[in-house]
């Protein structure tokens, strides 16, 4: 144990901030800290005061109650302090909580406090805990200083020097070392750190780190297998779920990724970024009900969070607009009303952001049209058109959403013109072109999208099984829903050519092929299906010549 004079000295030099909404607790905390030898102690009541204080003052040790009553909680304070760089890495943030279960408190993985203090806290315990942490802070200060300066190579060599000398902080040093190599992109050294630990013992943090390296190395299958096993043995390890969902996403297994995130959000519902992930994956799966629920929670968790964003409100409005267009649903009107409400609160909350009004009106326009309020929708459309005509360089994301509205209100021609111009302006942006093509292919609501996708899948299965007639029927039915879908049109052409080759007596399939290819006339050269389109056109020409 350290000697008491050293203790008092260590406490004396540091600055403290106590955040608690109960005056009694603040005062008793100050008393305890003073008894330990601390002198520079600031007491504040809520998050706003805490953040303001940290903006103008350097704090070494923050003692923050998790539950601060109405408004921001301790996790929000931590996130904001770290996000705005108001707290150095070398400072300590201690979360004081009444819960023994960290699950309640746990937020996103990127923001962890340096320690938890579980109430009841007595003086001896706080003193002991702080001494341990201050010793640790002191021992690790040179490393943390380099990390604060983003001088990672120096931080790594300090970690390596400290490891053999410092068994007390071995876990911290190894975790930090793995993380630093990973940040530097030195994956082989990062892997070695984790492997060495795992060789000695199966530790979940090392398994997680190892999986992260595997993912970065694009060894998806191996990473996914590792993470599944980790979750099997540690069903309450939230970080593993997040990383597994990441891996499955990269493998293209989106519905499985969605299931994993759903499990994780049930267990730990308060992490905003996890809800957002779930919303995005569900959206990609066209599971709009789940997406809307997850966006709702993302928006509501954002109320006091540094991660709050107009994009979440907009995405919720867009999901609800999709749901409101579903004519079979009894809740169509409710969804429309909620969509308009969310958009209105977005405009109010983010009034200082210049494009918020425009983005809101684009969605409002199609919601109103879908509810049969054609006159209101038309008035909005006129103002939107004027805005787009006078400003041709509007953000492509906004233009894309405007094109969607144009499709929904029946102005297909205008929508296609807009998308055509957009594709020309951004001909070298693959990701954007992909989204333009997707909208061109499927300018319909999510239920029709799902229907067309299922039919297409059936068609491909039938084709692979050699049942050409069933394949042709399925693709034809799909095209009744999405008549301009490039690859489905080409699929049908391919099947019809095979049917003709098998039985050249009827030339009917060839006529149908011609009609399908005519639809795709003017397919731009940069389109992903362009080569296939040319090849099939030439083949047809050969057969009809």
């Amino acid at each position, binding site marked *: 144990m350290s000697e008491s004079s050293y203790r008092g000295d260590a406490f004396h030099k540091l600055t403290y901030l106590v955040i608690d909404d109960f005056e009694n607790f603040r005062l008793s905390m100050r008393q305890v800290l003073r008894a330990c030898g601390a002198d520079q102690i600031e007491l504040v009541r809520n998050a706003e005061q805490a953040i303001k204080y940290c903006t103008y003052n350097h704090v070494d040790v923050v003692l923050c109650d998790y539950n601060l009553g109405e408004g921001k909680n301790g996790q929000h304070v931590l996130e904001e302090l770290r996000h705005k760089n108001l707290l150095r890495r070398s400072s300590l943030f201690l979360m004081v909580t009444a*819960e023994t279960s960290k699950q309640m408190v746990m937020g996103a993985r990127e923001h962890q406090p340096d320690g938890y203090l579980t109430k009841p806290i007595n003086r*001896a315990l706080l003193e*002991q805990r702080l001494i341990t942490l201050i010793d640790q802070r002191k021992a690790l200060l040179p490393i943390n200083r380099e990390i604060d300066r983003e001088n990672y190579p120096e931080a790594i060599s300090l970690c390596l020097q400290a490891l053999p000398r410092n*068994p007390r902080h071995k876990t911290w040093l190894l975790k930090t070392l793995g993380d630093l190599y990973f940040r530097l992109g030195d994956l082989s050294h990062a892997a070695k750190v984790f492997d060495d630990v795992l060789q000695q013992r*199966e*530790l979940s943090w090392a398994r997680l780190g190892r999986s992260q390296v595997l993912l970065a190395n694009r060894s998806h299958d191996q990473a996914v297998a590792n993470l599944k096993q980790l979750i099997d043995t540690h069903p309450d390890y939230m970080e593993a779920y997040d990383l597994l969902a990441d891996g499955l996403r990269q493998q293209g297994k989106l519905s499985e990724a969605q299931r994993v995130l759903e499990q994780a959000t049930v267990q730990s519902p308060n992490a905003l970024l996890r809800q957002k992930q779930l919303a995005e994956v569900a959206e990609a799966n066209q599971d709009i009900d789940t997406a809307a629920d997850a966006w709702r929670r993302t928006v509501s968790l954002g109320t006091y969070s540094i991660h709050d964003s107009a994009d979440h409100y907009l995405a919720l409005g867009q999901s609800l607009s999709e749901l409101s267009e579903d004519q079979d649903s009894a809740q169509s009107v409710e969804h429309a009303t909620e969509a308009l409400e969310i958009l209105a609160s977005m405009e109010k909350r983010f009034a200082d952001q210049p494009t918020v009004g425009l983005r809101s009106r684009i969605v409002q326009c199609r919601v109103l049209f879908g509810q049969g309020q054609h006159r209101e929708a038309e008035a909005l459309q006129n103002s939107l058109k004027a805005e787009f005509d006078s400003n041709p360089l509007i953000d492509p994301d906004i233009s894309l959403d405007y094109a969607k509205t144009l499709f929904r209100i029946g102005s297909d021609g205008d929508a296609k013109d807009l998308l055509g111009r957009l594709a020309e302006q951004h001909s070298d942006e693959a990701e954007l072109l992909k989204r333009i093509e997707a909208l061109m292919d499927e300018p319909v609501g999510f239920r029709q999208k799902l229907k067309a996708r299922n039919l297409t899948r059936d068609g491909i299965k039938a084709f692979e099984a050699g049942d050409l007639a069933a394949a042709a029927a399925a693709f034809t039915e799909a095209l009744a829903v999405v008549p301009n879908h490039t690859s489905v049109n080409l699929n049908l052409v391919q099947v019809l050519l095979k049917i003709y080759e098998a039985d050249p007596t009827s030339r009917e399939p060839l006529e149908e092929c011609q009609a399908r290819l005519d639809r795709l006339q003017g397919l731009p050269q940069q389109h992903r299906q362009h080569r296939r389109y040319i090849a099939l056109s030439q083949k047809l020409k050969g057969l009809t010549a």
Partner: protein
Amino acid sequence: MTDPKNTSNRTNDSDQNIDFSMVLASTVHDMKNSLGMLLNSLDELRTEHGSTFDGSPRFNTLQYEAERMHNDLVQLLGIYRLGEKRLSAHIEEHYLPDFLNEHMARHAPLLQGLGIEALIEAGDITGFYDADLLTGVLNNTINNALRYSRSKIRLTAELRDGYLVLGVEDDGEGYPESMQHSGTLSFKSLDFNTGSTSLGLFFASSVAQLHREGERCGSIRLHNGGQLGGGVFEIWLP
């Protein structure tokens, strides 16, 4: 400071099938937080009134029993999560002297009040375990030792036969014959008809079993003797 959201009853009005264990768990959670507040106030009272309360049997009983209830509730929640298969051991490497010192510190006010001397014997060693789970076990065991010891308790950590052994010893009468055993306790072995259900030992045994390394698995042992001549509780971790 307690979260009002936690007290909300999560059963649905239209759903008459009451999930009793869930209602229980959420109530226990609430009670535990209340007791936490109570314990905090007791600590503050003791600090404010200095030596007046030290040696006051009634005040010590108040604090001891509140502590005991708090520990029971923590265990109850742990066992609930165990049943839900949501409890797993997050094993990390910890430095034993720090860990044990922190534990003694948690009990400092009551030790002082009861006039019991606490000894910590841990070499300069590290060990692999889930600190939160072990905290639950040790709190309960130390609290128990406080009840039965005369003047001393001893907290030990050492490596034995490839296991990390954490021990809590007291200088009391020791465990009755029927309770001494080694190995694991099953839920069935709990006797709810006698006053002592050994729920604490069941929890300790379950936590020990969550600690596995290859083929080896943790266990608990109870016997009498040790350096202080009273009861000895040991948890063996691989």
